[in-house]
């Protein structure tokens, strides 16, 4: 058998041996990505290894993005230590607070060479597969080892093929497509595997980051888009390569998708959660914090103010995305609509900074995770959806199908908004009732619900 998957091709090339799924390989890394959240442990790891210097100052990329700008003195101290370390190590590539999310910058500023192995201190390092790199997230000690040696060890993963067919309809996005895939495959369906995305090669880079980054939510080691414009000639999977599973997604038939808390793989058509009250909308993250996402929200808001009961938190994924959105008036339009625009970075996606959730609050987020406690209070609920769904939630205060809003003429648009706002459960009781609705859905939807989804016994 000679046919090989992308993972087998990249890891064979990197390791200099013909390796197949299941083999262990020791491979050089082309870059190591490190961010603020783990720097103390990474430094401690290098010290414990007895290594004072990183193996190659040109191949290390450091970011302050996870809690940036610093929300507390403890974090501020950690950032100070990180800056001193970067200077002391003479690391050339350093992006300080406000520059943006590590993954967005790694891709848009060209640090991800297609066909190479890149390890990052963040689980969404899979994002580098958007340009054909084998990007894998690792913990702090693995990163310390990679920084010290310039190498890492990997088990060559089996691969899962996701085949997209057809065309997305208006109002349906690649976020909906990948959320559908996560729902089909499940949070552990791609554990230890590489997900190959077929049928989307020439998609804009940003949408490809959405796909590759979300492969993490299926447990994948890497998520690589096949035949991207950046990919060299040798980098495409053989026609008869072996896959453990093939998932076909019919884009023509796809509806807007929503992941229902507290699981990313608890995925329903938006109609199943229509009418759920929302307190706060988060537009941002490496998954959906780009100009195209902000434009989609502005397109749907049509110059209207957001609903009075709702906050809209916008965090551009990088300074470049922010500046592009400034230049074309998108930021001004969001601000006029009532949005709070935060400094580029991870923002409230992981509940550390800028708009964390209160108990019983319900959030519609364009990010990638809705675990209990992810964005703040463990009592808060997080629905995951596309920027269009986010825009409707901000405008009306409820989750709804964005397509009628996109299609309506001006007069019927306002009627639709008014109707939806009236239907929103009253504040206070609203949160409780919407929470009940989420629980009903958990019972009604025939997908991977476990009585121990929180890792603790559920009382009833």
């Amino acid at each position, binding site marked *: 058998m000679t046919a090989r998957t992308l993972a087998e091709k990249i890891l064979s090339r990197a390791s200099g041996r013909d390796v197949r799924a299941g083999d262990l390989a020791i491979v050089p890394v082309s870059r190591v990505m490190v961010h603020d959240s*783990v720097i103390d442990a990474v430094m401690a790891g290098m010290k414990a290894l007895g290594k004072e210097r990183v193996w190659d100052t040109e191949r290390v990329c450091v970011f302050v993005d996870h809690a940036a700008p610093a929300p507390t003195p403890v974090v501020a101290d950690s950032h100070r230590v990180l800056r001193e370390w970067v200077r002391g190590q003479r690391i050339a590539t350093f992006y300080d607070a406000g520059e943006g999310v590590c993954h967005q910058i790694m891709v848009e500023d060209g640090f991800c060479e297609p066909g190479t192995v890149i390890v990052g201190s963040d689980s969404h390092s899979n994002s580098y597969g958007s340009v054909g790199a084998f990007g894998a997230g690792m913990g702090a000690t*693995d990163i310390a080892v990679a920084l010290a040696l310039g190498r890492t060890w990997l088990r060559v993963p089996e691969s899962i093929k996701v085949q997209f067919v057809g065309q997305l309809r208006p109002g349906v996005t690649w976020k909906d497509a990948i959320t559908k895939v996560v729902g089909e495959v499940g949070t552990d369906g791609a554990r230890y595997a590489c997900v190959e995305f077929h049928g989307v090669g020439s998609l804009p880079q940003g949408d490809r980051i959405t796909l590759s980054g979300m492969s993490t939510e299926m447990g994948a080691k890497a998520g690589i888009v096949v035949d991207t414009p950046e990919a060299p000639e040798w980098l495409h999977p053989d026609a008869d390569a072996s896959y453990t599973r093939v998932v076909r997604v019919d884009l023509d038939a796809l509806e807007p998708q929503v992941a229902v808390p507290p699981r990313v793989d608890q995925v329903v058509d938006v109609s199943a959660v229509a009418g759920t009250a929302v307190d706060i909308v988060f537009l941002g993250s490496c998954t959906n914090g780009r100009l195209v996402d902000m434009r989609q929200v502005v397109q749907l808001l049509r110059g209207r103010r957001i609903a009075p009961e709702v906050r809209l938190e916008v965090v551009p994924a990088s300074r470049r995305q922010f500046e592009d959105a400034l230049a074309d008036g998108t930021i001004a339009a969001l601000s006029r609509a009532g949005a709070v625009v935060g400094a580029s970075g991870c923002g409230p996606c992981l509940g550390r900074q800028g708009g964390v959730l209160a108990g019983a609050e319900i959030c519609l987020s364009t990010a990638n995770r809705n675990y209990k406690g992810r964005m703040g209070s463990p009592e808060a609920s997080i629905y995951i959806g596309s920027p269009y769904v986010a825009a409707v939630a901000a405008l009306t205060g409820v989750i709804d199908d964005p397509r009628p809003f996109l299609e309506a003429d001006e007069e019927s648009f306002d009627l639709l908004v008014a109707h939806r706002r009236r239907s929103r459960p009253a504040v206070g009781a609203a949160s409780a009732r919407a929470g009940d609705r989420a629980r009903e859905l958990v019972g009604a939807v025939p997908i991977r619900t476990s009585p*121990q989804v*929180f890792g603790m016994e559920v009382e009833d």
Partner: protein
Amino acid sequence: MARAWKFGDDLDTDQILPGRYAPFMTGQDKFHAYAFHDARPEFATTVKPGDVLVGGDNFGCGSSREYAVAALKVHGIGGVVAKSFARIFFRNCINLGIPVLESADAADLVADGDDVTLDLVAGRLRTPCGAATLRPLPRFAQEILSAGGVVSYLRAHGDFPALD
């Protein structure tokens, strides 16, 4: 004898250590006190060195945060046994020297609070309802674990264990 702490499927790292209590947020000397803060509030004050965590599928999914494993290390957890593990959590345990073992039957045999014995030599988790079988680790991982983690291994040998 050790206490078994039983968890379900898909236990994510936000449950093991919520992001808001990362060492980065709370300080290097305090973060472990927030282990299972939301999911099992009594854990951090009652866990004993040598206790064993037992879970279902996809144990440790979610964020790459090694400090979730580091918190378990500070508490002296004797091992983690689950039907299957999320990949980054698995690596982090090997790297920090916490035995991390797959078992098809442990989760079914163990109830929370059981007295159990983790016998790594025999490859068994002994429980009041019988012995669960532990799947042997690859030699590569065993060598790192036996050294007490990847840092100790690399300090002693200068490089990764040899591949077969």
